[in-house]
């Protein structure tokens, strides 16, 4: 591997890894508060991509009920990204009300909630297929405005050779990092974040201290859905929206990320995302068929060697 390829793969890894990170944070936020893996997160990811696509004025194909429909607005990418992700966040809130809350109120088995969230994922995925068909949707070529399609990193770093990097990768990386920084600030520096951490630490005690835990659970779902929507849009705009199922495999990789980082651990999800993104980017091209196994291989090994994750803390099993 020469140096140019190394730089390219490094940036590829960082860019996909940072999307893994913001996506996995959506899982982790919900897990830290409810102790439940929300499988519908993958479906919200898919929804976010479709929402943004629609808000940018995209037209649907001829399959499905909404054939050739489009909304009468054409927002620029940045605005559509924000609105699309907010819509995804509101969907997550709706899911919480309909599929999580009834079970939580009754104190049901967490595994049952897991199945309920899977039911939601199947429901949403097939609803998308019913409404807009299963075809691939590509974001318009001018998605990123006047930015050139690739940037020569060789010239920027003064390497004396051409190292082209797709602009998409850089946009993804920058957007993800900005979101990660804002989220870290919210969680660690604000009153809201403090309350959120308190609810995650101990829901009962937090409610005794006057925190409206029910509201914070809803806000957590909103944040989680928002992050899922951003991740879905970024992946969709970088490759394409590969049909209603495109969130499912991404969702499974997100599981690998949060286990690697430690379930419910926020910095861990970021580290886990970057590790898995980089590990996938550096799979040699002759073994590219095995690329999808990397995340799951890592997941399996981490579970066996260090089940609490890279940065996770030990939980003592009490009788």
């Amino acid at each position: 591997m020469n140096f140019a390829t190394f730089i390219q793969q490094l940036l590829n890894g960082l860019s996909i890894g940072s999307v893994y990170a913001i996506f996995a944070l959506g899982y982790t936020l919900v897990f830290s508060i409810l102790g439940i893996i929300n499988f519908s997160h993958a479906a919200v990811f898919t929804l976010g991509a479709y929402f943004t696509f629609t808000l940018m004025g995209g037209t649907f194909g001829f399959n499905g009920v909404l054939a050739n429909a489009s909304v009468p607005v054409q927002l620029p990418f940045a605005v559509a990204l924000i609105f699309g992700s907010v819509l995804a966040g509101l969907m997550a809130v709706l899911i919480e009300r309909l599929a999580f809350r009834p079970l939580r109120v009754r104190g049901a088995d967490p595994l049952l909630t897991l199945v309920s969230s899977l039911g939601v994922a199947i429901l949403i995925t097939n609803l998308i297929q019913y409404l807009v068909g299963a075809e691939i949707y590509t974001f318009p070529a001018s998605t990123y405005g006047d930015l050139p399609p690739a940037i020569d990193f060789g010239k920027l770093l003064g390497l004396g050779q051409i190292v082209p990097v797709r602009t998409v990768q850089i946009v993804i990386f920058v957007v993800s990092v900005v979101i990660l920084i804002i989220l870290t600030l919210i969680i660690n520096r604000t009153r809201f974040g403090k309350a959120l951490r308190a609810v995650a630490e101990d829901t009962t005690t937090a409610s005794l201290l006057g925190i409206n835990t029910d509201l914070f659970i809803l806000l957590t779902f909103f944040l989680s859905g928002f992050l899922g929507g951003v991740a879905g849009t970024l992946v969709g705009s970088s490759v394409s929206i590969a049909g209603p199922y495109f969130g499912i495999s991404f969702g499974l990789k997100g599981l690998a990320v949060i286990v690697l980082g430690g379930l419910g651990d926020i910095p861990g999800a970021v580290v886990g995302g970057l590790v898995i993104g980089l590990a996938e980017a550096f799979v040699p091209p002759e073994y590219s068929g095995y690329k999808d196994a990397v995340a799951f291989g890592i997941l399996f090994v981490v579970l066996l060697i260090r089940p609490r994750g890279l940065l996770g803390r030990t939980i003592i099993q009490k009788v």
Partner: protein
Amino acid sequence: MSDFFSTYGFLLVSMMLAAMLALSLYLPLMSGQLSLASPGFYALGGYIAAVLSTKVFTATGDLYPVPLLLLEMLIAGVASGALAIVVGVPALRLRGIYLALATIAFVEVLQVLALNLDVTGGAVGIFGVPQPFRTQIEYAWIAAPMLILAMFFVYRLERIRVGRAFIAIKEDELAADAMGVNPTVNKVLSFTMGAVLAGMVGAIGAHFLNTWNARQGTFDASIAYLAFVLIGGSRTFLGPVLGGMALTALPEILRALSGNGSLPLWLTEFMKDGRFILYGLLLVLGCVFLPQGFVTPAFFSRWSKKAHAAKLKRAA
């Protein structure tokens, strides 16, 4: 009647296979272990049967000999069991959601291997698996006795020492350990039993479907089996069996309902194109309104006076 069998033969055998796959997930669940590994062993068993029948056993003649099919099932069961012990010993140290995630990873890794190895035919898979029967309903000669055997096996298991040890671990692992029940041995045993069953069903499945590829053991399948068990009821073995049968038949029932013209057109169209939407909705509603599943132990106690008296005593 023969008309009925030729139309619904595929569905009936599919329902039996689904019931057995649901049982294969129920077995580890008996000892409280949520394992989603069944589709992996099902896929493995299918590949073993497909490779053996197309490349190793070159039977001449019109129909593939049934004893060879039984031999394949035996080999598939033994191989799945062996792999289950190798994977299970380290993996079953994990509890709850961690074990579920480890088994998801196991299934995904097997799938990637199946897509990339030469022996499994890559993404195309293996075609033209020889047929031991002329019609699909005749597969019931294998599937029905096997289902009855599997049900009897689990029924007895729930009432003997080993099964009671499983249930003790499910209720409280530490307490069971203190009472002299070895958790590791019993958890691996229940996991392995499920794997053997799934592997044997896979061997039938490869012949039944005539072709085998990497789409057979996927995450979607894990979820479907889990739905069979949890919607059917995870407290007794009848729950998974009935759940597997009912949920496999459901899309067909919806399709039949949409075809007979007694419903308005928009509803007919929706049921044809959107039946998986209903399937997802049913999963959510089932979890919210029927958390114990349809078939619960209380379901049977209605016929048992003793249990009824005990219930009255508790209520008093």
